[in-house]
């Protein structure tokens, strides 16, 4: 693959400008553009074996064992038979190969699926169906709207397009979740869908070479001798979805790897977990330890050979090449290196991989993370990060689409001073909307949107009654907007709204009987209570950020000129006619109520215009439109002239729907001491509003800091003020962290955790963040922000999101997780230790770059607290046990050296060494690390505090490793000296000897296996049937293998390889042997039981107390206590906000506004 890449890079470096001709395959083929085949797979059937082996031996561990194998083949130092390394190595390699093969097979399937998807190509005047992989540069293809042609991002190619249908040659393009307007150049859109003309089209395109800039494209189309410029508005990118047009034709410009999407994918950086790094360090430690042990033993050997071996030469002469004890010692160093290599178990890395793999599958299989409406299960796209999910400390979240659904729902309104939308029960009390709440019946309206639900019947009754102001209110909603409608089937309207807010308002109007049916640039057709009316659209008074309102002027069928206006209440209330002052006061009160519930509000007003006045204004308007200087100002002056003396109609309240369970999830995560940072491109007000709604900020918070400085100094001041309040001593010179930082520690250094004196929140906007992220301020920002419970960063660019994540990653020794759904989150998803993509949205960029995907934010809770926690615990248990069992296993050799003349004599049978990690102990430890649960999911979710140990990596760190080492040393001592003491000068009950080497081996190895099995039994807290089978089965299996390996037949067939004939029969029936085993097991296990028992008593940590409570409940089989903390009546800061995105306005610019007023009230709709 790297070869292909380098080739294509070569080609690209040569290719400065790209030439191509439409319908000119022959010409284009000369340039050798790549075809549209996608290849993400790595292997083919033929090259799998060599390539995979090559890749595997690039890993240090495998290469190490290969070297070890060569060492073993040198007869002078070989202390172990060659097969003790070859067999495990083969197994490890083949397990990895099988896993790689399965992964690659999936990739092949995906590739095939993508490559074989059908596409319509214009060929010789006909439309032909072809496969995607056959598309070439210069082809003209047809895309349809209602076919899932570009549903998948893995499809398509970059092309510029021409022929278009309907909507006056406009096309809405869905790139990620944002609609973009694209328009074909006129010369090609004139071709329409005339296939003859299309296939005869022979325009030549000269354009830039493939690059990854999504928003930039320059090219020149030469057609019939004329040049036309092509910019990025003319380019449809791979990964887009076409909307709002029936079809379009396009000329293929980039294919396959050249497309902007593929160019943009970038090389995904391979993420490594903290545990991986720790493992590498530990393996290094082990190496040093191993080296020093070998050194000690080699010296011992030298001394022994001098003192004893030299005189023992009568019976054991030195070898010819061994001239002195020093040479012998050097050789023995390597011999011991071979013997003690099991300290670094060959199967460590492959076992870790298998465990992560298995635990990833649990995520894929989790039904509670499956989202039925979109049919999307959670997916672990990376299988190497699992245990890090149990260590997350910081969560960086996007807002729109992640916390919220990006769905706006018309929730309440106030019309003419009357409040609508509240839901009351029979006794007149306010109730929460639930599944059972009866919806309003809109059956009287055939054009109603069935998905719309509203719960207050009084409003419908008012509409039916014909209440004039209510009618006018909805009429204005159905007229004053920039929504476009589509009506494929009679009566089934589909609105294409630029912002979901607008869509919600128009949909509401539609359901209440004022159906916006279609529009042209001059007409708006509205069905009013079943009666079709056509309004003449006279003017649209644009939205902009200053005006915070939009208006339309229409001529009604009754020939009245009306202005309808909607906008932020702060603005609109100033523009009202004095006569509606009392109405305004009532409405403002309602608006306050809406704000408290966190709803987005707008005021709606109208004005009836005098025809003459309008004509006069219209002239001024056209003058202003045409003016070249200060056009903006002049326009807004003209607008202001018109938008005054408005008559108030009422106000709307739209709910920005949070995803299900978001507040609960965030509360849970907070309890798990996970810090939430919201990084959003949205406005401050919107973001803060949502932060309150989803419990990132609570009312119990002690303070809130807003950083909005416009230069270095103010930002610094604001940050320091915030810190002063949270932890005054942190500003003092004497503060340890300050002292530490002033010593200018070498990078990389870590900023220690600081504890503030309360719960605080920080809000910072993108502009200030730009300053704060600069060199000298970033530590200030980090220290301040990390002390806060929640941080909101608004108006962020995608790059800043990544920078913030990087900042925390760089200076804090924590695990970060970024979650988002859109293309603007990709950078932060890639930057964070763990990237989570919300899938199921149309845009898949985030998902494709993420490590885990699911479709609902609330799954994060399960991902971290259940799967993450389990994965972490399992991994830690696995590592502790794995190191322990290998230390206990290997170090026995060390002790034996002192009694065998440091001669590299092994304690065990070679077959036992071969099979120990591979067969005898692999299944129990796999069972432990795939099935173990300290507490089940219910408890994990109920007590988020249980998550805490992972964040501080308490269960496996260097200290724990040293404990394993000490434990291993202790066990090996017991394992060696008890049998030694017992068999020393001892005989069997029939007088024959048992102090022979082979019996000793058998006793020690059997005892070892019993000890490690008991140890894992002690570590296992969740005994499933499989655990039983694995654990006891392995022990039983050992005895079976033992009798097989020591059987007469096998030993006689290969007397040199199987030398332990009859040892099992002669030794296993000895009472001494079993007494030894019992003694060893007790000596090794009872202290551990004592330690486990005393540890929580002597050094209790928070988790122990919680575990105690859980165990208490479990023993009495109680259900988890529902921890409904009484929530205090909250005073909520609310603000009005509107999710308006600019850039849609090539056709119609809409006006939206927001109100940023602060209210404090006691009620909270989001808390139950």
């Amino acid at each position: 693959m790297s070869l292909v890449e380098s080739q294509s890079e070569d080609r690209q470096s040569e290719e400065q400008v790209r030439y191509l001709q439409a319908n000119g395959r022959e010409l284009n083929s000369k340039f050798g553009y790549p075809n549209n085949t996608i290849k993400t797979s790595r292997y083919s059937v033929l090259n799998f074996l060599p390539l995979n082996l090559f890749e595997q031996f690039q890993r240090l561990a495998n290469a190490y064992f290969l070297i070890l194998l060569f060492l073993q083949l040198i007869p002078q130092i070989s202390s172990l038979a060659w097969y003790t390394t070859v067999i495990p190595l083969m197994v490890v390699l083949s397990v990895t190969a099988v896993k790689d093969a399965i992964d690659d097979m999936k990739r092949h399937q995906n590739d095939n699926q993508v490559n074989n998807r059908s596409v319509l190509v214009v060929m010789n005047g006909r439309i032909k169906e072809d496969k995607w992989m056959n598309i070439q540069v210069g082809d003209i293809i047809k895309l349809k709207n209602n076919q899932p042609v570009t549903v998948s991002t893995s499809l398509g190619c970059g092309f510029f397009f021409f022929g278009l249908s309907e909507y006056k040659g406009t096309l809405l393009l869905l790139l990620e979740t944002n609609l973009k307007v694209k328009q074909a150049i006129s010369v090609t859109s004139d071709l329409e869908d005339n296939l003859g003309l299309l296939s005869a089209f022979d325009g030549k395109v000269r354009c830039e070479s493939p690059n990854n800039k999504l928003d930039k494209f320059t090219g020149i189309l030469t057609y019939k001798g004329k040049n036309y410029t092509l910019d990025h508005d003319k380019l449809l990118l791979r990964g887009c979805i076409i909307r709002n047009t029936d079809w379009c034709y396009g000329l293929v410009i980039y294919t396959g790897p050249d497309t902007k999407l593929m160019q943009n994918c970038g090389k995904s950086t391979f993420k490594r977990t903290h545990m991986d790094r720790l493992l590498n360090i530990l393996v290094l430690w082990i190496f040093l330890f191993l080296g020093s042990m070998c050194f000690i033993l080699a010296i011992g050997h030298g001394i022994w050979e001098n003192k004893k071996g030299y005189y023992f030469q009568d019976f054991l002469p030195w070898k010819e090449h061994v001239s002195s004890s020093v040479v012998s010692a050097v050789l023995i160093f390597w011999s011991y290196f071979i013997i003690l290599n099991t300290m670094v178990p060959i199967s460590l890395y492959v076992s870790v991989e298998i465990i992560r793999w298995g635990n990833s599958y649990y995520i894929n299989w989790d039904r509670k993370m499956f989202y039925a409406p979109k049919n999307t299960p959670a997916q672990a796209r990376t299988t190497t990060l699992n245990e890090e999910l149990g260590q997350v400390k910081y969560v960086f979240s996007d807002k729109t689409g992640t916390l919220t659904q990006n769905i706006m729902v018309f929730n309440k309104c106030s019309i003419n001073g009357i409040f609508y939308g509240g839901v009351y029960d029979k006794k007149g009390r306010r109730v929460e909307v639930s599944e059972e709440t009866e919806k309003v019946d809109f059956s009287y309206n055939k054009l109603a949107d069935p998905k719309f639900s509203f719960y207050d019947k009084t409003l419908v009754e008012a509409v039916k009654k014909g209440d004039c102001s209510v009618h006018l209110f909805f009429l204005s909603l159905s007229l004053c907007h920039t929504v476009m409608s589509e009506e494929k089937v009679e009566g089934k309207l589909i609105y294409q709204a630029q912002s979901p807010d607008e869509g919600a308002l128009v949909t509401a109007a539609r359901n209440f009987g004022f159906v916006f049916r279609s529009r042209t640039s001059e007409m708006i057709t509205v069905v009013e209570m079943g009666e079709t009316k056509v309004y003449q659209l006279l003017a649209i008074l644009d939205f902009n950020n200053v005006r915070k309102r939009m208006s339309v002027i229409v001529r009604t069928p009754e020939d009245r000129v009306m202005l309808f206006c909607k906008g932020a209440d702060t603005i609109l209330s100033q523009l009202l006619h004095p006569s509606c002052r009392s109405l305004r006061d009532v409405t403002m009160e309602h608006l306050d109520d809406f704000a408290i519930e966190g709803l987005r509000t707008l005021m709606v007003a109208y004005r009836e215009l005098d025809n003459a006045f309008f004509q006069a204004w219209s002239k001024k308007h056209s003058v202003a439109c045409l003016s070249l200087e200060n056009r903006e100002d002049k326009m807004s002056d003209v607008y202001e002239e018109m938008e005054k003396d408005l008559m108030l109609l009422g106000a709307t309240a739209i709910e920005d729907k949070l995803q299900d369970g978001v507040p609960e999830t965030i509360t849970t995560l907070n309890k798990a001491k996970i810090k939430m940072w919201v990084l959003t491109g949205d406005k401050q007000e919107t973001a803060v509003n949502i932060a309150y709604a989803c419990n990132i900020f609570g009312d119990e918070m002690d303070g809130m800091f807003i950083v909005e400085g416009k230069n270095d100094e103010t930002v610094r001041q604001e940050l320091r003020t915030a810190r002063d309040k949270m932890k005054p001593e942190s500003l003092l010179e004497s503060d340890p962290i300050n002292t530490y930082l002033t010593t200018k520690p070498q990078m990389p250094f870590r900023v220690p955790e600081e504890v503030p004196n309360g719960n605080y929140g920080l809000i910072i906007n993108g502009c200030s963040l730009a300053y704060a992220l600069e060199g000298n301020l970033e530590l200030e920002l980090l220290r301040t922000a990390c002390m806060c419970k929640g941080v909101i960063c608004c108006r962020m660019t995608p790059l800043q999101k990544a920078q913030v994540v990087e900042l925390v990653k760089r200076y804090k020794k924590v695990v970060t997780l970024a979650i988002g759904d859109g293309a603007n989150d990709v950078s932060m998803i890639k930057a964070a230790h763990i990237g989570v993509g919300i899938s199921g949205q149309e845009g898949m960029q985030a998902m494709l770059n993420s490590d885990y995907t699911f479709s609902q934010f609330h799954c994060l809770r399960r991902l971290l607290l259940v799967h993450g926690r389990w994965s972490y615990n399992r991994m830690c248990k696995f590592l502790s046990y794995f190191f322990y069992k290998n230390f206990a296993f290997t170090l026995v050799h060390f002790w034996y050296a002192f009694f065998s003349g440091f001669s590299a004599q092994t304690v065990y049978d070679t077959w036992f060494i071969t099979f120990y990690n591979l067969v005898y102990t692999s299944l129990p430890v796999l069972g432990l690390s795939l099935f173990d649960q300290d507490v089940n999911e219910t408890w994990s979710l109920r007590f988020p505090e249980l998550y805490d140990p992972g964040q501080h990596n308490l269960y496996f760190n260097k200290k724990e490793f040293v404990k394993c080492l000490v434990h291993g040393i202790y066990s090996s001592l017991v394992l060696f000296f008890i049998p030694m003491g017992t068999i020393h000068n001892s005989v069997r009950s029939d007088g024959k000897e048992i102090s022979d080497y082979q019996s000793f081996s058998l006793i020690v190895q059997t005892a070892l296996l019993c000890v490690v099995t008991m140890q894992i039994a002690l570590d296992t807290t969740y005994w499933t049937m499989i655990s039983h089978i694995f654990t006891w089965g392995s022990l039983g299996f050992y005895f079976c293998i033992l009798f097989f390996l020591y059987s007469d037949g096998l030993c006689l067939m290969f007397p040199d390889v199987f030398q332990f004939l009859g040892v099992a029969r002669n030794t296993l029936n000895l009472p001494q042997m079993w007494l030894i085993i019992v003694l060893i097991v007790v000596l090794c296990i009872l202290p551990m039981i004592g330690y486990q028992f005393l540890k929580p008593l002597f050094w209790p940590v928070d988790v122990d107390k919680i575990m105690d409570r859980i165990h208490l409940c479990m023993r009495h089989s109680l259900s988890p206590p529902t921890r409904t903390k009484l929530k205090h009546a909250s005073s909520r800061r609310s603000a009005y906000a509107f999710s308006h995105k600019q850039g849609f306005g090539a056709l119609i610019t809409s006006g939206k506004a927001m109100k940023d007023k602060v209210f404090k009230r006691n009620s909270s709709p989001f808390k139950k």
Partner: protein
Amino acid sequence: MTWSATARGAHQPDNTAFTQQRLPAWQPLLSASIALPLFFCAGLAFIGLGLGLFYSSNGIKELEYDYTGNPGTGNCSACALADQYRAPPLRCSCAWYFSLPELFPGPVYLYYELTNFYQNNRRYSVSRDDTQLSGLPSALRHPANECAPYQRRASGLPIAPCGAIANSLFNDSFSLWHQRQPGGPYVEVPLDRTGIAWWTDCHVKFRNPPLVNGSLALAFHGTAPPPNWPRPVYELSPDPNNTGFINQDFVVWMRTAALPTFRKLYARIRQGNYSTGLPRGSYIVNITYNYPVRAFGGHKLIVFSNISWMGGKNPFLGIAYLVVGSLCILMGFVMLVVYIRYQDQNDEDEDEE
């Protein structure tokens, strides 16, 4: 990666206990009610077992004599001196006189013990050819490389049995004489030299090569005995069932010891009058002193021992059991005290809460 084309719910994961990690399971808890009794029970059981083991080991009688012959330690010194200039070893005899005031209860076993002899040295212990010893004719003449330098004689003849272990075969021999009454004649006590090796060893693992013309000597034709051996392997014993590779002394020697100090069974005393043990009286052990050990500081011992249900005399296991048992009980008390104290403390804490 597309969801559009598939049916609703098609991707829903299976609802099995395995995939949902809800496998029924037993979740044992390490509570005080388990841990404390465990310690006490284990302690008591161990002390009981330990006492049993200790007494049964103590009941075993052992009689040992170091005949290495360090100057002034007996009449083997002369032989020991000769041992300095060994190879080929001189035949030298010495004796050990001892008397038993009472019956030495049988069955009595006669062992020889070597100290400081590293049979477990790796180079030593691999220096053998199990294929040759299993009687394979091809291997007989082609000893394995591990046997070097005792693979072939200088003449090029293959050594059978090859290797350092075989070469260093222990070749002292003992005979036991009993004098019933003081001044009476010494009667030779019959030593049973068979049945001293593992049955599997001398019947399965070690086999002579197939006889040639009914003669074992011919079967070994073309091989040479190890350099230290005065006789070829087929003359180890006149008994045809106990000669060659299946000679029991040889088989016992070839089962290498795990530790540098080891005992090997020399003979069993169980015949005639001596089946119940060695009666009281004076005894002589006549020793044919061949085997040189003083060069490397080794010792040779001769040991008479009888045996209980759990083997020979070795107090280690009994003492270990007693110590561990006591420690268990001690730990149990410590844990009990700690538990009660912290339990109270925790209760108080909870009350405060």
